[in-house]
């Protein structure tokens, strides 16, 4: 030491001055917030020093984020990490900062990251990749943004944990698969129903028709030879078989309504209703009934099905008549007031309301809803024939036309059926 020359001492001073300058530069950089942390090469690897800077509040904000946020140096070193990222990778913060970010990337996704890191210096890029967490991996989305600092560049990375999203996607896929299975089951079941309908249509009707025709045959050929009671039995066989035939055909019609074939056309309800009333011509003149048909609109729908609806309603109106007054049926229509359609601005009405009103026996209003159920009958068979399917069919058809059918009545005074139908179908 004593042998140190003046020159050596001067050099030593110069060296210390340089280090002081360097330290002052660093201090200045810290003060101005240009530096978040210092990574110092030590003998046992990198040592890191983090700093509280002027943008502490901003830092707090980053800390509160649910995403991981890190800053990478040009060599891919993590110079900053929020605690969210460290918990994402399951390591203490001190083990994260100063490490190569690529240490945390699953080996299989290393090339993906390399590519992102390369591009990230020129543009903002995003990519999904797996990040290691202990022995497992976490699915993440990386968003890389180039940061231009005073005299150097860095990359900020936002790391979004996709575990929940992936789980949701998995669940969605699972539910979709379950839905597909259910759908298939439904298609199969529908197919079975169609099969059943076809069996019912032919195989059930075949023997029934034989019963009917041979009973009729017997009646035509030997009715007069039969004793009174046998004639009565024969009549009962014929009327029961006829009833069953009506039932089978009605059930078939009902089941067939589900099977699609929705031919939509413009249907003039005036023409349709007149046509139906013509069919009842004989009945009407026999009973001295009066059928009033007011102007009816043209609507879009399935002609055959709409015919069925009005046939059933008019049939009912002419069937359930009071014994003490001649039947009077009124069929009329009014547009539905657009103002009542949920307070929308006044516009041309999209729906019409068609009423079929009679002066027949009517029904108790408590049955106003159940009257549309399959096989619902309010009157004893002995007085009024029917399958109990007619109104169920009418309701199903109106439902299919996105309409509404309701009934109201006062017993003894008559029944009124109202149908609300859209002019245009869908």
């Amino acid at each position, binding site marked *: 030491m004593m042998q140190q020359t003046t020159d050596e001492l001067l050099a030593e001073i110069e060296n210390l001055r340089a280090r002081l300058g360097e330290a002052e530069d660093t201090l200045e950089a810290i003060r101005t917030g240009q530096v978040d942390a210092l990574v110092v090469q030590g003998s046992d690897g990198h040592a890191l020093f983090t700093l509280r800077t002027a943008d502490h509040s901003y830092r707090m904000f980053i800390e509160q984020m649910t995403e991981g946020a890190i800053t990478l140096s040009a060599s891919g070193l993590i110079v900053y990490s929020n605690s969210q990222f460290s918990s994402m990778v399951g390591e203490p913060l001190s083990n994260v900062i100063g490490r190569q970010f690529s240490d945390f990337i699953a080996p299989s996704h290393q090339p993906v990251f390399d590519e992102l890191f390369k591009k990230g210096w020129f543009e903002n890029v995003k990519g999904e990749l797996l990040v290691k967490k202990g022995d497992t991996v976490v699915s993440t989305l990386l968003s890389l943004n180039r940061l231009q600092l005073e005299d150097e560049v860095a990359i900020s990375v936002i790391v979004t944990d996709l575990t929940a999203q992936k789980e949701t996607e998995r669940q969605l896929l699972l539910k979709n698969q379950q839905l597909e299975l259910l759908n298939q089951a439904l298609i199969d079941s529908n197919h079975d129903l169609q099969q059943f309908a076809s069996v019912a249509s*032919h195989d059930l009707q075949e023997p029934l028709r034989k019963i*009917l025709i041979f009973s*009729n045959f017997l009646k*035509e050929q030997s009715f007069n030879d039969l004793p009174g009671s046998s004639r009565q039995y024969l009549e009962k066989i014929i009327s029961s078989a006829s009833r069953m035939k009506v039932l089978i055909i009605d059930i078939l019609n009902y089941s067939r309504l589900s099977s699609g074939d929705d031919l939509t056309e413009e249907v003039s309800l005036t023409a349709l209703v007149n046509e139906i009333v013509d069919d009842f011509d004989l009945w009407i003149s026999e009973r001295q009934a009066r059928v009033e048909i007011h102007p009816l609109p043209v609507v879009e729908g399935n002609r055959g099905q709409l015919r069925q609806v009005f046939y059933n309603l008019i049939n009912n109106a002419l069937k359930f008549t009071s014994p003490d007054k001649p039947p009077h049926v009124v069929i009329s229509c009014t547009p539905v007031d657009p103002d009542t359609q949920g307070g929308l601005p006044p516009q041309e009405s999209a729906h019409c309301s068609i009423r079929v009103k009679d002066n027949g026996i009517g029904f108790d209003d408590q049955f106003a809803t159940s009257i549309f159920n399959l096989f619902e009958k309010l009157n004893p068979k002995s007085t009024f024939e029917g399958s109990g399917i007619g109104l169920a069919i009418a309701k199903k058809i109106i439902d299919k036309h996105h309409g509404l059918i309701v009934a109201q009545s006062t017993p003894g005074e008559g029944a009124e059926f109202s149908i609300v139908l859209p002019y245009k179908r869908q």
Partner: protein
Amino acid sequence: MTVRRVILVEDDPDDSELFTIFCGNRTDIALLPTVGNGVELMAFLESTADYTQLPHLIVLDQNMPRMNGRQTLQALRENPRYASISAVVYSTYADTTLIQDCKNLGAKMVTSKPIDAEGYRKMMDDFLEFV
């Protein structure tokens, strides 16, 4: 009065008997022996060498073994010798699908089987309109 040769293609013995009872006694019809299905019909037609002795009207049931009503219509249409013979279909239950299919295959009329004598008379009158 013109007498038309009519042949029934029907596998059900009851229906075949009823048809014979109700239509066999008509003076405007010469009812040929009933055949049980389309295959038998085609064989019968083949064996009828004299063109002028072919039936004027073929009444087909739909549900039959070996060759049903639809298939028979198809076979008739494909053979120029028989394509001009009027064919009609009567079935236990004539739904819109059956009616459309058979009409497309050239059936002049498709109807449900009658349930009484009057029904048979009317059906046959309707059928003869197409001859």
